[in-house]
């Protein structure tokens, strides 16, 4: 292969990352934000979103694509938080309580999700997406109708005035930033939420460690080739369910961390775009449906949120309307998912063509070998 061709390949393989770096470089000067300002915001947002994005990794290893079904875990986390607020458990204890409530729920939901995906092999992503819509209905029923009516709710302040159902916006003052503030370190002009970072670091260690276990190896095998893994005696379906369950549980914790940082919760919408933004982030970081790493996750969070942070202001300064930037944010989010999926399909096809070239060359050389031997005889 020629050097030019190789360069083209590298560019094409990293098209999304390069595009984002370019856009950010252009937008930053127009936004008028100082570097210090931007960095502080990035530190905050890394703490807020990392856990959610990392939750996507295991299903990708298991060959199940981007787990849009992680929204189910987010719902479980929110139910945990509602309980914590209702019971008046403040601070980090509230978060632990929410996690304790959310864990069994998200294991159950993840198991359902995995079982459904096992019946829709090859279409896991769209299945997860639609499943999240369906579960949204169940969540609404639970929170809007049964809480306060069937499930006892003690504090009337979080209920709608009609007496049952949770308010549209839930004030999370009790647990606000309780993880972030647990160990806030001041380095120069920057505030670093060390405790949150520690939790994320523990998760990273877990993922690295998990990949070294037998289960992790099986998951990789299943991800690479389902049929071969099955014929080698690896319990394929069970392995896939475990991957989704772990992902769902991590998404539950991720949503709790996300919401404690935000400080309030849109009861019926907060989970809507959890999966969507996490998926967009990991794709921006250069991951694909089949391949992702810790680096992809962190790079993606940084680039996507840099864009999200500077683009509304840049839009306002350039066009006199922040809505342009807001529009841009949505556009870019969906655009990047579509672009990544298209690029992935294109790459798969390109590799098939490349493999075919090899076959063609082999074929003709094999033939000439045979011919030579024939002549020798």
């Amino acid at each position, binding site marked *: 292969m020629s050097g030019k061709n190789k360069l083209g390949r590298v560019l094409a393989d990293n098209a999304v990352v390069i595009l984002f770096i370019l856009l950010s470089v252009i937008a930053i000067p127009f936004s008028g934000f100082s570097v210090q300002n931007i960095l502080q915001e990035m530190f905050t947002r890394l703490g807020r979103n990392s856990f959610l994005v990392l939750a996507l990794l295991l299903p990708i290893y298991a060959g199940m694509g981007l787990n849009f079904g992680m929204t189910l875990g987010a719902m479980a986390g929110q139910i945990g938080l509602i309980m914590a607020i209702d019971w008046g458990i403040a601070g980090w204890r509230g978060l632990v309580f929410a996690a304790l409530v959310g864990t069994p729920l998200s294991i159950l939901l993840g198991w359902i999700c995995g079982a459904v995906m096992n019946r829709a092999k090859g279409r896991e992503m769209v299945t997860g997406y639609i499943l999240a819509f369906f579960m949204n209905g169940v969540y609404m029923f639970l929170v809007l109708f049964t809480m306060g009516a069937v499930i006892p709710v003690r504090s009337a302040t979080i209920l709608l005035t009609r007496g049952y159902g949770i308010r549209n916006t839930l004030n999370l003052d009790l647990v606000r930033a309780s993880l972030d503030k647990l160990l806030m370190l001041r380095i120069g002009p920057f505030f670093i939420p060390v405790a949150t970072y520690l939790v994320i670091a523990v998760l990273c260690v877990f993922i690295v460690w998990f990949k*070294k*276990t*037998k*289960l992790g*190896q*099986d998951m*990789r*095998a299943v991800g*690479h*080739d389902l*049929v*071969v*893994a099955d*014929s*080698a*005696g*690896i319990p394929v379906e069970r392995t896939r369910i475990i991957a989704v369950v772990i992902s769902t549980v991590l998404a539950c914790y991720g949503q709790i961390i996300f919401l404690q940082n935000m400080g309030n919760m849109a009861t019926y919408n907060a989970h809507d775009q959890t999966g969507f933004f996490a998926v967009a982030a990991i794709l921006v970081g250069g991951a694909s449906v089949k391949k992702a790493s810790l680096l992809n996750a962190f790079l993606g969070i940084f680039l996507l949120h840099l864009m999200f942070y500077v683009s509304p202001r840049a839009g306002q300064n350039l066009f006199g309307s922040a809505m342009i930037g807001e529009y841009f944010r949505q556009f870019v989010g969906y655009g990047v998912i579509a672009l990544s999926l298209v690029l992935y399909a294109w790459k798969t096809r390109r590799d098939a063509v490349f493999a*075919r070239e090899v*076959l*063609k060359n*082999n*074929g*003709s050389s*094999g*033939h000439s*070998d*045979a*011919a030579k*031997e*024939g*002549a020798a*005889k």
Partner: protein
Amino acid sequence: MGQDSPLLSIQHVSKDFYGNVVLQDVSFDIKPGEIIGLVGENGAGKTTLMRILFGMPVITETGGYQGKIVFDGHETNFSSPFDALDAGIGMVHQEFSLISGFTTTENILLNNESMKPNFLNEVFGDRMSFLDRSDMKQRAVKAIQKLGVKLNPDMLISEMPIGHRQFTEIAREINREKIKLLVLDEPTAVLTESEAEVLLTSLRNLAAKGISIIFISHRLQEVLSVADTIVVLRDGKAVKNLPSKECSIRDIASWMVGRSMTSESDAEVANRKLADEYFRVEHLWVDMPGETVKDVNFTVNKGEIFGIGGLAGQGKLGISNGIMGLYPGGGKVIFDGKEAPLNDPRKVLEIGFAFVSEDRRGVGLLLDESLEWNIAFTSMQIKNSHLKKMLKLVKIRDDASMRKLTEEYIKLLDIKCTGPSQKAKELSGGNQQKICLAKAFAMKPSILFVSEPTRGIDVGAKKLVLDTLIRYNREYGTTIVIVSSELEELRSLCDRIAIIDEGSVAGILEPTAPLEEFGMLMSGAFESNKEASHA
């Protein structure tokens, strides 16, 4: 070696699938350290026999088998391939079951990894143990050495030459401590000659270490050189079982194919006067999974019935599918002096090619539609026939003309149905095939490609379908290219027959040529013949 008790003894095994007998009273023994060469044509029963040995679920689902299999002194009846593995029987498949993104070591030890326990085992079970990478590598290297080949334990499968992948697969089987019998199904099919030589040497190594081997291959000279004993299966019966020293390639080839040595229609087919060259294929390659075509050259004369035969997986099906643009391919196809486009099904239909696919229910028919639709569909799409103009603006379907056409073909081909509006899926296999033919005939093609025209239809219908093809050829002078696995069928109606082996033409023979000549070509025995056929 030198023990009298056989490791594996297959005793009077018979098997039928719903009355269709595929194995009949097959018996043979394998001693420890012996290599058995198992040969036979497609459909001779090799695969079924191996499925029985491995306890594949498909056997019990279809009513089990008769006879006895004794392995290592015990009568066995495995209920799944994993039981067979546990007992010490390993299988290396024709298609690779390797994970291409994994290294040699990871593949050799797939689901058999070395593990280091840790505290989480107590709670979550063995799957939470760490992998012991260094021990895994040692075990892999040991298996590779036992095989007697050079393999890099850290190389990814996707970066390996194909021969090394085959060795990796074998290494995986012999890595198991208990392995006593190894079954290799066409292990050399994808290897170059030098790679195959290394493989045969390492098989002899393994046999010398006391591992018995069943070697299934269509390359007879390899079977002959490696096997101690040759077992020939034909039509479900073990027709020969003798030491390899006592037979020649030519003997085996004729035992494999030799049914009745006469063919009724020879006289009629021979010596027809044919016009000039009409259709030519040069250096055709086609990427059809499982039927890869590498480099095919042949010419067909006007009005000829040209047969293409060969064993399954050698690429004969890929030729017609590639020419019709159904799978990506390249090379040159010259038709009537002009180059025909590849990879564009519509274009080739427009210049007068028609195709009867081997995938009758998938590509050939619109199963849920009426016979009218099925027969008229392609010609309506390509030739704008059976359409009428309405208000000179829009073209609508001409149902009356479609019905007339269908009734015509129902009568002509003697299709058994309730009428033109019956659904295609309700017909029997033979009648469905006639519908496919009628669809192709309705195109009034200049050249007709027919793929496996008699697959899956009963004997009576077979004859009707073949007669229809001959009649059509004689009456309209249509050039026909037939691809078929059934040699007898090709010999009964073709003017010339090309045998495909490993993706290229092994040789072109007259239908009257002796059967063992065909057998030799299919077995890749005549390397030098390839040259002659390209000229």
